[in-house]
């Protein structure tokens, strides 16, 4: 306790509540907006309190027309496939490469690490045209492979695993060697189970990364069988000279936001632990 100043604690709560409110404001507006008719926005101000069109709006977006429900379902599924594909792909290749880098000494190890690390930062947007061409040449347009594989080439995960592996005591490796475990057994029996929290944290980070992609899917797909939720929001926004149907946009925004938010909150403990422990 150190000092007895109840007002300080009260003040802290106040600041935190304020912080929570400010952080929540945009989403509050989105939720509220999703309960109003389309023209509630044009006539002036964005409403700050609920309207009565919640059901109508959600209904319209989810099952408005014939076949639309299945389209929403399909987009959700695509978002999920893309997010999970990217997530598991990255985790898998990163685990292997981080394992190689941390637990082996071999020529060109430094080079390999730098090459991987270099990809950490340059986002797809910057190299989108040549990347698109490569994917097209490989005949991967309109495929889940094309959606996911190119985005797997980034090094965040490798880097985090490297940090995490480096904190594993060397004695464990030695104990395993004495127990007759070679590198493969060690990887599966010891390393993987020990990296659970880090894998979980990365799962969250990468899932969100994958789920939130929109430019890439927009470019590599031409088949609406591959559209994703985030794309659909973007699509409702680019209405040349037409009016943007904010109520529906907000419904879709919320729809696209719910799964990753659930993932973050659901895995909060593991996420925080894995993230913070690996970095420090």
């Amino acid at each position, binding site marked *: 306790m*150190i*000092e007895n100043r109840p007002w300080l*604690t009260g003040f*802290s709560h106040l*600041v*935190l509540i304020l*912080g*929570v409110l400010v*952080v929540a404001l945009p*989403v509050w507006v*989105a939720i509220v*907006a999703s309960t109003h008719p389309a023209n509630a*926005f044009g006539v*002036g*101000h*964005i409403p700050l309190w609920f309207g009565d069109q919640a059901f109508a709006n959600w209904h319209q977006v989810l099952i408005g027309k014939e076949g639309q429900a299945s389209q929403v379902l399909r987009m959700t599924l695509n978002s999920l496939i893309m997010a999970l594909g990217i997530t598991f792909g990255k985790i898998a290749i990163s685990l292997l*490469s981080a394992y*190689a*880098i*941390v*637990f*082996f000494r071999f020529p060109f190890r430094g080079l*390999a690490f*730098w090459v*991987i*690390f*270099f990809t950490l*930062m*340059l*986002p797809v*947007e*910057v*190299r989108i045209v*040549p*990347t698109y*061409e*490569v994917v097209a040449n*490989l005949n991967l347009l309109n495929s889940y492979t094309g959606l996911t594989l190119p985005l*797997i080439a980034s*090094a965040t995960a490798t880097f985090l695993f490297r940090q995490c592996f*480096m904190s594993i005591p060397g004695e464990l490796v030695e104990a395993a060697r004495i127990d007759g475990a*070679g*590198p493969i057994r*060690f990887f599966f029996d010891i390393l993987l189970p020990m990296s659970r929290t880090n894998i979980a944290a990365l799962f969250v980070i990468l899932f969100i990364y994958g789920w*939130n992609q*929109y430019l890439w899917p927009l470019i590599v797909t031409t088949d609406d069988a591959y559209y994703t939720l*985030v794309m659909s*929001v973007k699509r409702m*926004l680019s209405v040349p000279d037409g009016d943007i149907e*904010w109520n529906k946009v907000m419904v879709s925004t919320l729809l*696209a*936001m719910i799964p*990753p*938010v659930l993932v*973050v*909150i659901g895995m*909060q403990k593991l996420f925080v632990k894995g*993230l913070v422990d690996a*970095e*420090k």
Partner: protein
Amino acid sequence: MSVYFPQKLLPYLLLMPQLVVTAIFFLWPAGQAVEQAFYQEDAFGLSRDFVGLDNFTELLTSSEYFASLKTTMVFSFSVAFLGLAVALWLAVMADRVIRGAMVYQTLLIWPYAVAPALAGVLWWILFDPSMGPMALLLESIGIDWNHFVNGDQAMILVVISATWKQISYNFLFFLAGLQAIPRSLIEAAAIDGAGPTKRFWDIVFPLLSPTTFFLLVVNLVYAFFETFGVIDATTQGGPGQSTTTMVYKVFNDGFVGLDLGSSAAQSVVLMVIVGLMTVVQFRYIERKVQY
């Protein structure tokens, strides 16, 4: 770790998938970008001329490019600063309250999950000069908000939108950092006669410096490279060029303007910057700041 497996071939096999993917989807396109930077080409790729360093000289003599460099700096440092300051402030408060820290964490953590493009949309409509509640609020206190005209306001808008997402991430690290500071240090300072504010600036803040520095780097990288979606969804670089960052410009010139040569040259410049940042970040992470 100074213990290694003796196998010689295995590590290459383990690295293979990552390297193959990197080579095909990163190095190859990057190589093409480098090549492209020396050519002038029409959009459809029907004809191309070798122009040597023209694309680069054009770039480096264009005031717009330097303007975007400056914009990038202002933007990145503002995002980093604001994000760190707010998150630290909240983390300090959360560290103080023994009860409920977890609840606050949950309530603060979720914006991390929101797509940058969606975050941009949300803030955009909040600040829309004619219908956004924030704009109206500002107007009611005498601030005429119009980010379509006012470049500084546009910058503020993109900074806020970009920062918003980052606060949760920073908050997590700061809270963990605060909780890792030994209680006894704070107690020693209390015995040494320092009140809560003084303790924060004399003891806590300096001790957080490794976390702060780490977050600074992460936030700068984020603001530099990953805010494309936010800018695209809010200001699209305007008004004027007041929110055109370098990454936005590469995309815009290349993908929207179809000036592939210049865009490729800009990619090359960015790659060099990334290379430098990689070195810096790597050095830092290898031997963390010591206090």
